[in-house]
């Protein structure tokens, strides 16, 4: 398996993956910190390196609408956005999943206004967790590239849209050494989109029709069933990708979990820092591990239950909030998946909002608090790490 190692930012890694996927249509609107993805793609198209229709639209709402239309014709489709842009796509996201239009979208995670903030947190993606999209989360620029390639395989096979999330600036703009897979191997892996129902002058059908009370429920359930069924395909794709390209992915990535007593659950780029501190904790005699959520939708409930069975305390890191909710988004999901099966104490944390650094010291504190929760047999209300009073 021949690879080339290059220094690339997360955004350029994604643009490169999209070029290798030989997409047919790109419809996007620039927004920080996503812009350099579609900027690079427009360059590829203008240079003739990528034979795709690049649709310049006037908004993200139109970008997503154009993607839905393009996907209905059977095209391989890509778009990218962040924060306000994703929020502006909101209503069309639900149509993309329910109309079963496969496409890949890179969402470069950025805080939602107000106050206006261009830096990283997970509030944008968390607000779309009920939209019926598959959500994959990258912890490095290499992940972002690999997940983008796999996202085409998964989405087009399951006829579902896939969102690849990567942390704004931390992953999108930081240069990392990237192992680029061989372009021909990628073409063989995802040759072209499998033929499904497609709009054409010869095969007319009506799509996006009214679903009255007699039918809406059944149609909605189709989308519920589709993402449920995608679980096994996602696992297969991860396994197949490892076989061909040598890098393995799991729905839940665990680190030092085999003999761990406590673990911290993370998503995205913060995983690296958590792992470093977990080793430090081990050296200090605390058996700590790290669990990171790779496939956030469909939620890896079974895998988490398995991991939780061996633990005495779990800390859950949310990089987003649910104001007025019972807890914050990731905590709520995990608590609900463990309910009735596991009584392991859970301690919630909120950190890193609006681009605030999550320092190694913050992680030390979070591991200590998780350890405390395990000893006390219960967690306390969520801890807002580093919040000034």
């Amino acid at each position, binding site marked *: 398996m021949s690879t080339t190692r290059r220094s690339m930012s997360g955004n350029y890694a994604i643009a490169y993956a999209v070029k290798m996927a030989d997409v047919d249509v790109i419809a996007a609107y620039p927004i920080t910190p996503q812009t350099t993805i579609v900027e690079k793609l427009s360059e590829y198209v203008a240079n003739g390196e990528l034979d795709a229709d690049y649709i310049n639209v006037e908004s993200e709402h139109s970008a997503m609408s154009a993607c839905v239309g393009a996907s209905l014709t059977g095209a391989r489709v890509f778009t990218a956005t962040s924060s306000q842009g994703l929020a502006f796509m909101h209503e069309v996201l639900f149509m993309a999943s329910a*109309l079963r239009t496969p496409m890949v979208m890179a969402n470069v995670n950025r805080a939602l206004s107000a106050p206006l903030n261009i830096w990283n947190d997970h509030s944008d993606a968390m607000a779309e967790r009920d939209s019926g999209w598959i959500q994959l989360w990258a912890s490095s620029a290499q992940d972002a590239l690999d997940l983008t390639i796999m996202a085409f395989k998964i989405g087009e096979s399951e006829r579902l849209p896939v969102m690849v999330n990567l942390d704004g600036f931390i992953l999108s703009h930081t240069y990392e050494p990237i192992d680029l897979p061989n372009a021909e191997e990628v073409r063989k892996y995802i040759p072209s989109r499998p033929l499904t129902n497609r709009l054409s002058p010869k095969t*007319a059908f009506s799509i996006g029709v009214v679903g009255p009370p007699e039918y809406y429920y059944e*149609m909605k359930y189709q989308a519920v069933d589709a993402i449920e069924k995608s679980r096994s395909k996602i696992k297969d794709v991860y396994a197949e990708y490892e076989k061909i390209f040598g890098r393995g992915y799991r729905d839940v990535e665990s680190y030092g979990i085999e003999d761990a007593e406590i673990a911290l659950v993370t998503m995205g780029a913060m995983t690296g820092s958590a792992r470093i501190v977990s080793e430090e904790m081990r050296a200090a005699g605390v058996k700590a591990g790290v669990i990171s959520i790779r496939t956030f939708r469909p939620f890896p409930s079974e895998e988490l239950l398995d991991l939780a069975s061996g633990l005495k305390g779990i800390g859950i890191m949310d990089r987003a909030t649910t104001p007025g909710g019972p807890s914050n988004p990731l905590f709520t999901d995990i608590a609900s998946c463990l309910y009735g099966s596991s009584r392991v104490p859970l301690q919630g944390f909120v950190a890193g909002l609006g681009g605030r650094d999550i320092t190694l010291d913050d992680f030390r504190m979070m591991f200590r608090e998780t350890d405390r929760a395990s000893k006390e047999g219960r967690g306390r209300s969520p801890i807002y790490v580093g919040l000034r009073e």
Partner: protein
Amino acid sequence: MKCARPKLKGWKEIPEGGTIVEPGSSIQFDVSAWRVSRPVIDQAKCTKCGLCWIYCPDSAIEFKDGKYEPNMLYCKGCGICQKACAPKAIIMFKEGKK
């Protein structure tokens, strides 16, 4: 008039994404419950001019065996046929009353 109501399809039977793959499917859609009033045609007064058939926005008036009759599966009871009827052969009756 007795109407045959088609069986509603289950989620496994509906084409993926709610796509309508065959044209003319609105014929399967029963709107009779929308109706508050129903048109009754007095066949003795009817001159067979066909204005009701022309004006019905839901194509619910059918011409069968030399007579115009509303198909009550598709009639929403809008009353346009009554307004259009030149010989005033159509009377709207409140549903539930004789």
